C-alpha cells in the first residue's frame, strides 16, 4: 500500500508530497532518469525528500535515458508497473513529471485524472470504503477545469490510480525523516520503443519577466490598436513592471503571444494587476486572479473585470492612463524637490 510521487529533476516536490500524504497511505517517491545512484542530483533529491518526510526514493535508471523524451520515460515507468505496482502515482500538474506520467498512463492504458486539487470524496461520502486498495476500487478526485473556474468531481476507477496535482493545493504538513533511502531499479529501455530524441536544451527567456514582474499593466481590445500600448509601456516602466495583454490583442497581432495573460498564455500573480480595456472573460481571469490587487480601467462599469476587481476607474484607457502617468511624474518631481526645499 503506497502512493508514489513522481519527481523529475529539480522540480519542487513539496506540494505533490503533501497531496499524496492526504490520501492517508504511505508515501514514497520515484524518478526515471539516466542518473546513477551516487549522482549529485539524486543525492539532492533524496535530501529534499527526507526533509519532506519521504523515506524511500525508487530510481529507474538507464544511461540511454539521457536524451529521452517524456514519452520514452513514460513507457519505461509503465513497464515497471508490471512488476511493481503501487496503489497510486501522483505528479505535479505542470512540468516534465506530468508529461512522463501521461505517457505512462497511455502506455499502460490506465486512466489518469489531471489537475486535481483534492482526493477526498465530495460526492456521496463513499470514498472511505474505496480506500481498500482492491484492484477495481474507485477514487473520487476533484479536478480543476478551465483554469480553476470550474471544479469537476471525478471518479477514477483503476488498479493503479494516476493523478496530477494542481499548483497551490492545500497540503498536509509533515515531520522530516533522518534519511531517504535510494533504491536503484535497472530500467528496461527498448531500443524500438520510440525514435525521438532531445537534441538541444536551453533556459527560456520568453515570458519570464511577465510571470515574475511585481506589477503587470495589461491591455485588451479597449486599448484600440498596437500604438495604443505606448502609454501602457510608459506606466509599466514607471512602476518597474511588465506589459501584458488579452488574447484579442494577440490575435489581432498587436502584441506577441509571450505577452498574453490567461489560460493559454502566462499565469501571473503580481502585487498589482492593471487590466486596461479587458472585459474579464474566464479564460483571461484565471491568468490574473491570483494577483494581490487588481485595478480595472474600463468604459463599461458592468464589465466582469470591473465587478471582480478591487479597484476600478470608469473611463477611456488612453485618457485615464495619460492622466495617471502625468500624476506619477509630477509626484516624483515634487518628491525629489522636497529635500532641497527643506534643507534651505
Amino acid at each position, binding site marked *: 500500500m503506497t502512493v508514489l510521487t513522481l519527481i523529475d529533476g529539480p522540480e519542487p516536490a513539496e506540494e505533490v508530497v503533501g497531496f499524496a500524504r492526504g490520501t492517508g497511505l504511505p508515501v514514497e517517491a520515484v524518478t526515471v532518469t539516466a542518473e546513477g545512484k551516487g549522482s549529485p542530483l539524486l543525492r539532492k533529491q533524496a535530501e529534499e525528500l527526507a526533509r519532506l518526510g519521504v523515506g524511500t526514493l525508487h530510481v529507474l535508471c538507464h544511461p540511454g535515458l539521457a536524451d529521452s*523524451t*517524456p*514519452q520514452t520515460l513514460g513507457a519505461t515507468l509503465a513497464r515497471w508497473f508490471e512488476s511493481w505496482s503501487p496503489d497510486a502515482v501522483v505528479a505535479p500538474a505542470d*512540468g516534465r513529471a506530468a*508529461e512522463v506520467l*501521461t*505517457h505512462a498512463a*497511455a502506455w499502460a*492504458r*490506465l*486512466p*489518469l485524472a*489531471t*489537475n486535481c486539487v483534492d482526493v477526498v470524496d465530495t*460526492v456521496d461520502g463513499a470514498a472511505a470504503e474505496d480506500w481498500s486498495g482492491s484492484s477495481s476500487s474507485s477514487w*473520487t478526485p476533484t479536478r480543476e*477545469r478551465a483554469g480553476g*473556474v*470550474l*471544479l*469537476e468531481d*471525478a471518479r477514477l476507477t483503476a488498479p493503479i490510480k494516476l493523478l496530477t496535482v494542481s499548483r497551490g493545493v492545500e497540503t498536509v504538513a509533515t515531520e522530516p525523516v533522518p534519511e531517504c533511502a535510494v533504491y536503484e531499479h535497472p530500467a528496461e529501455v527498448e531500443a524500438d520503443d*520510440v*525514435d*525521438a*530524441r*532531445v*537534441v*538541444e536544451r*536551453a*533556459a*527560456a527567456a*520568453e515570458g519570464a519577466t511577465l510571470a515574475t514582474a511585481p506589477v503587470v499593466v495589461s491591455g485588451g481590445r479597449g486599448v484600440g490598436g498596437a500604438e495604443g500600448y505606448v502609454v501602457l509601456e510608459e506606466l509599466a516602466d514607471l*512602476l518597474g513592471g511588465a506589459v501584458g495583454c488579452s488574447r484579442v490583442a494577440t490575435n489581432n*497581432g498587436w502584441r506577441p503571444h509571450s505577452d*498574453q495573460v490567461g489560460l493559454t498564455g502566462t499565469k501571473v500573480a503580481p*502585487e*498589482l494587476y492593471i487590466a486596461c480595456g479587458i*472585459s474579464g*472573460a*474566464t479564460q483571461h*481571469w484565471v491568468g490574473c486572479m491570483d494577483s494581490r490587487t487588481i*485595478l480595472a480601467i474600463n468604459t463599461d462599469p458592468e464589465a*466582469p473585470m470591473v*465587478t*471582480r476587481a*478591487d*479597484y*476600478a*476607474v*470608469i*473611463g*477611456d484607457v488612453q*485618457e*485615464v492612463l495619460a*492622466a495617471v502617468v*502625468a*500624476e*506619477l511624474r509630477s509626484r*516624483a518631481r515634487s518628491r525629489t524637490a522636497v529635500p532641497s526645499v527643506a534643507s534651505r
Partner: protein
Amino acid sequence: MNVLVCVKRVPAFGAKVPVTADGSGIDTRHLGFTIGPHEECAVEEAVGLVSAHGGRATVLTVGPAEAEEQVRYALAMGADRGALVETGTTELDPQATAEAIVGAVERLVADDEERFDLLLFGVASADAEHGQVGPRVAAELGLPMVGSVKGVDVDASSKDLSLRRDVAGDVEVCRVPMPAVVAVKEGLNLPRYPSMPGRLRARKAPVWSIGAEPARGGLATAGLRQPEENDEETVVLGHGADAAPAVVNVFERLGVM
C-alpha cells in the same frame, strides 16, 4: 505531407461558466461552440505545412453530429477534408476518445491507401483539459510523440521533424522521424480568420461521417460545480482623467512606486 488534425467541439463561455442545475454538465443552452486556441494553431500549422510541402490536411473530430460545425470551421481555415466520428453528446474519457480517433485513422488510411505523416493535436482540450488524447493516440499507434510544441520544422532532406517545445521554463528541441504525433501550444503561429471564399468552399465540402460506440473508460465525471468566489465590492476610484490622483494614491499605499 499528409497531416491529420484533431479538434474538439467545446462550449464558448464568457465571464461565468454556467452549470446545469443538477451539476451534470455545462449549461450550453445560451452558449455558442468553438474549438480551443491550441487546436486553432494546430489547424493553422496543418494548413501551412501542406501549402509548403504539398499533400493534404484532414480534420477529424469525435463528438455529436453538431460538431460538423467545427469541422467546417477548420475547412474554412484551409483544411482539405473533414471527418466526424459520431459518438453523441456524452463526454468521453480520454482513452475512449483516443480509441475512437485511432479507429477512424485506421479506416481513413485503409480507404486512402496512404499513411498520415503527422497527427496534430492541441496540448489540452479547452473544456476538459485532460492533456491526454495525443499521447494516448500515439501509444495506440506505436508512434513517437512530442508535446507542448511551439515550433515545427521539416528537414527537407531527411524528412525528420525538428520540434521546439516549452517545458518547465526550458526550451527543448526534439528530433523525430515521421510518422509522428505532435501536440501544439498556442503561440506556435497566428491562426488566420477564415476568408469568405474559404467559408463558401467549406460549406460545400464533403464531411465523412461514421458512427462509433466507444467503451466506457476509467475516468468519469460525477458532477461539475463552481468554486466559491469572494464577491467583495469594487472600489470605484473615479471617472476618466479625474481619477488619476486616487489611482496614484493606491499605488503609494501598495508600495509599488
